[in-house]
């Protein structure tokens, strides 16, 4: 099911709910995509990313994207396009430096979703489902979605960039962009065998240089990052789906259930099944 809403100020919202679909879109403006449940594959430019409810995707004006959904769980997604004038007013209001927008600012990538962003978008969805036609109110939600995204972008890119040990700001920005590409690659392929060499190749950095700068920016080595991501996604699946533990173990890319259980327990101080029982009340 698709709900489309075009605003007088040319902002656009699209709600999708589906089990099986492929759709392509051309984006005239900066576009934010978020998945509320399930998982989807998204192609844009030459990239292909696996999209989960823990991440959002920002696409640049002029880009095309293809979203593929094939899931026994229903997949709900929200797409918001911010018109040029709307974005300009936003940037002015918060005195955001122009280099944070054009040159890699709102650049195409996957970023983590914050609780505030998720809540704003859920409220917006509720208003649309209720048939609220007041654009002034709906634009308030769009303004806050953009603000929530910018908060995440600041935290995930601008502040991490400051942690890189290069004296020139342009070098920091370039290395951060490459690290972000590698992080996105790890995140999209997290359940396969991701090699350090492949990730370093994506970043166009030597393995040693990549490992050191990645740790400076993210506080984890690439390997630790991958393990943490697998554990967090396994935890999400334990809480939100009914897949058996062994299935989840292989879905998130661990080979052996016993090492998964040990890592899970060491990280979250609880075994996976006890965690599921506590969160869902289901004993399996």
């Amino acid at each position, binding site marked *: 099911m698709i709900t489309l809403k075009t605003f007088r100020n040319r902002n656009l919202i699209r709600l999708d709910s589906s089990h099986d679909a492929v759709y392509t879109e051309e984006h005239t403006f900066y576009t934010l995509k978020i998945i509320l449940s399930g998982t989807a594959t998204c192609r844009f430019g030459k990239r292909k990313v696996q999209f989960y409810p823990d*991440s959002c995707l920002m696409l640049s004006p002029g880009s095309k994207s293809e979203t593929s959904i094939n899931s026994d769980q229903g997949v709900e997604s929200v797409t918001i396009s911010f018109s040029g004038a709307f974005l300009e007013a936003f940037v002015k209001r918060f005195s955001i430096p122009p280099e944070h927008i054009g040159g890699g600012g709102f650049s195409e990538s996957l970023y*983590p979703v914050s609780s*505030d962003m998720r809540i704003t978008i859920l*409220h917006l969805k509720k*208003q649309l489902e209720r048939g609220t036609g007041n654009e002034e*109110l709906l634009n*308030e939600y769009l303004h806050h979605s953009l603000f929530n995204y910018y908060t995440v972008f600041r935290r*995930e890119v601008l502040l991490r960039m400051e942690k890189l040990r290069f004296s020139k700001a342009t070098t920091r920005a370039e290395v951060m962009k490459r690290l972000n590409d590698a992080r996105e690659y790890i995140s999209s392929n997290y359940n396969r065998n991701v090699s350090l060499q492949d990730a370093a190749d994506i970043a166009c950095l030597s393995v040693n240089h990549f490992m050191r700068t990645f740790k400076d920016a993210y506080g984890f080595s690439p390997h630790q990052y991958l393990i943490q991501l697998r554990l967090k996604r396994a935890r999400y699946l334990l809480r939100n789906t009914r897949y058996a533990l062994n299935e989840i173990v292989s879905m998130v890319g661990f080979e052996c259930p016993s090492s998964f259980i040990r890592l899970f327990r060491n990280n979250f101080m609880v075994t996976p099944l006890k965690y599921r029982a506590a969160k869902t009340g289901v004993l399996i």
Partner: protein
Amino acid sequence: MPLSLKQTAQPQAPVQPEPANFYEQTLGIHARVFQGAASDPGYLGKDVEADVVLLTNDCLEACFELRSKGISFSQSPSYIEAGLSAVFADPLGRKCMLLEKRDYTEEEEFIGFA
């Protein structure tokens, strides 16, 4: 727009006629509920400081509706530790905070990961 009153600085003090009208007619909260309101907003979050705290499930929506009734906000919806809040004054000049409490306990899970 259901609002619920959570706190007033003087829970026992009778509400004056004019603010009573304001609370009942503009905000839709019966003055009686003032009697039972808690007097310490601290439990809502350490950054919640106001004479009157009104809880809402959707701060943007509540703020929008109150604005359409002529209330002007001294602070537009902004993010604080407790959630999303906006501030206006009642006819007696008391600081009223509209608060949408948010749970950020899962936030940590997502920081740095996507």
